[in-house]
């Protein structure tokens, strides 16, 4: 398994942090990972992105040559990265501010992450992590589609027992459990933010689950 994930949005939407969280989740599972930011001239209101590679094998380039997962927190980001995505990519699009009625080359999974963070989590700054939760569930669904009935059943039982999906040889994908654990690390200097961000990840995960 190898995921080359791009997280993109306005500067200030937390695309760097969301990427860090995914990379930390990979570490929690003992997977190889790299994180690479767009750096330099970005500022609040401009566009920014980060690239996270997660793999069972050693990683070459930290830049995505064959990106297969995208979180687009705004429309310019979706338009910019859509053409680079390989066929069958998983795309989470922030439908709070991206029109969902247009034709797209690859059909995104529309998740109103800004609205969820605002209304459900009561903290609009957590929209990035709502999207992270959504991506994790979408990747999980995609992997279970690819791995057949058997692994899907095993995954369900792993979920019920809160087992680590990483133990399943054929589905070394990021898990909700490791993302929640990564939250504790990512916000260790601001412990008051751990719970709210965990809630945000869970909310995004649950939203895609019930689609």
């Amino acid at each position, binding site marked *: 398994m190898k995921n080359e994930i791009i997280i993109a949005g306005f500067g200030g939407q937390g695309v760097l942090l969301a990427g860090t969280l995914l990379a930390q989740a990979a570490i929690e599972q003992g997977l190889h990972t*790299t994180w690479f930011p767009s750096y330099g*001239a970005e500022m609040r209101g401009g566009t920014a992105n980060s690239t996270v590679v997660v793999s069972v094998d050693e990683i070459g380039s930290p830049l995505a040559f064959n990106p297969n997962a995208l979180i687009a927190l705004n429309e310019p980001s979706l338009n910019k990265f859509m053409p680079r995505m390989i066929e069958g990519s998983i795309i989470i699009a922030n439908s709070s501010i991206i029109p969902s009625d247009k034709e797209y080359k690859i059909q995104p999974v529309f998740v109103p992450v800004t609205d969820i963070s605002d209304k459900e989590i009561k903290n609009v700054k957590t929209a990035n992590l709502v999207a992270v939760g959504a991506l994790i569930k979408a990747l999980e669904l995609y992997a279970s589609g690819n791995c057949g009935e058997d692994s899907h059943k095993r995954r369900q039982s792993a979920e019920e027992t809160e087992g680590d999906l990483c133990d399943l040889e054929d589905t070394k994908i990021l898990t909700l459990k490791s993302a929640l654990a990564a939250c504790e690390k990512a916000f260790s200097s601001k412990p008051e933010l751990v719970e709210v961000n965990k809630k945000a990840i869970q909310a995004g995960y649950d939203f895609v689950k019930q689609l």
Partner: protein
Amino acid sequence: MKKLVKGNIALCEGAIAAGLKSYFGYPITPQNEVPAYLSRKMVELGRVFVQAESEIAAANMVLGAAVTGARAMTSSSSPGISLKQEAISYMAGMQIPALIVNIQRGGPGLGNISGAQSDYFQAVKGGGHGDYRLIVLAPNSVQEMYEMAYDSFDLAEKYRTPVMILADGIVGQMMEPVEFNRPEKKDFEEKSWHLNGCKGRAPRSIQSLLMKDGVLEKHNINLQEKYKTISKNEARFETYKTDDARVIITAYGISSRIAKSAVKLARKEGIKAGLFRPKTLWPFPSEAIAALAKPGVKFLSAELSHGQMIEDVKLAVNGKVPVEFLGKAGGAIITEQEIVIKIKEMIK
């Protein structure tokens, strides 16, 4: 558990663990995490951090601190490293151990802030004046940023010479899991040369102006003897599947990772490719490359430049087998697929 940090931060941790006593720098992207992190960390540790008024001032401050025997470093990115060259030449001449870090960006001139590998000539062939060499280390991962920063000070002191870490914006900016696995260095050998006040001993002097008849000639001969010893002892490299390879890619730093992925892709298609990665760019592992230059083998130098390290590969191969090139500069990056396509052309 391993920590997720940027290459630039890992470099700082390596230097601190090695006993870095004083840092002098001036801001420039993509190395700004280094002074930013050390401005906090060094003060917490009761060590020295100075943001100088210019790059050249910072490099001369390193000279001044290191001549007292303290472990000292500066860091910058390409245009800033050009400005430091005067002090680097002086340190080489005065045989002052110190660390200079170049997190390369696109050039020439102010260029841009993307990662590049176009300062190879400057680092390896002598960016300043005079017949001198720097030991040049080329990390390709966040882990190596930590380890090479740690090792650089011992190397510098062992040979009384400045060491350069030649990384790039990608290795500097990326985060990867890293293990801070080196012991905090606390005991340092008494030096025979440093200037710490001559109370109770004969005065010492270290200078780079050597005007007396024949003194500078003799000094240069001594330096060259030292460089010969370093060449013999310190060339470091790594090989990957070179044993049966028909095409051997030579690549350092970030390019070597992309090249390794390309080797794996090529091997999947049954193409016998391999990778030779210099970890020291000076001394260059010429003998090891020469040993691989057997009939039927071709070399491919893959770089984020328009062809710099390839000159040393050609010198090592000495005309015995062909050496070809693939590279891009100015912030562009070569992909695994492009390397595989090039390999296929070469074995046609």
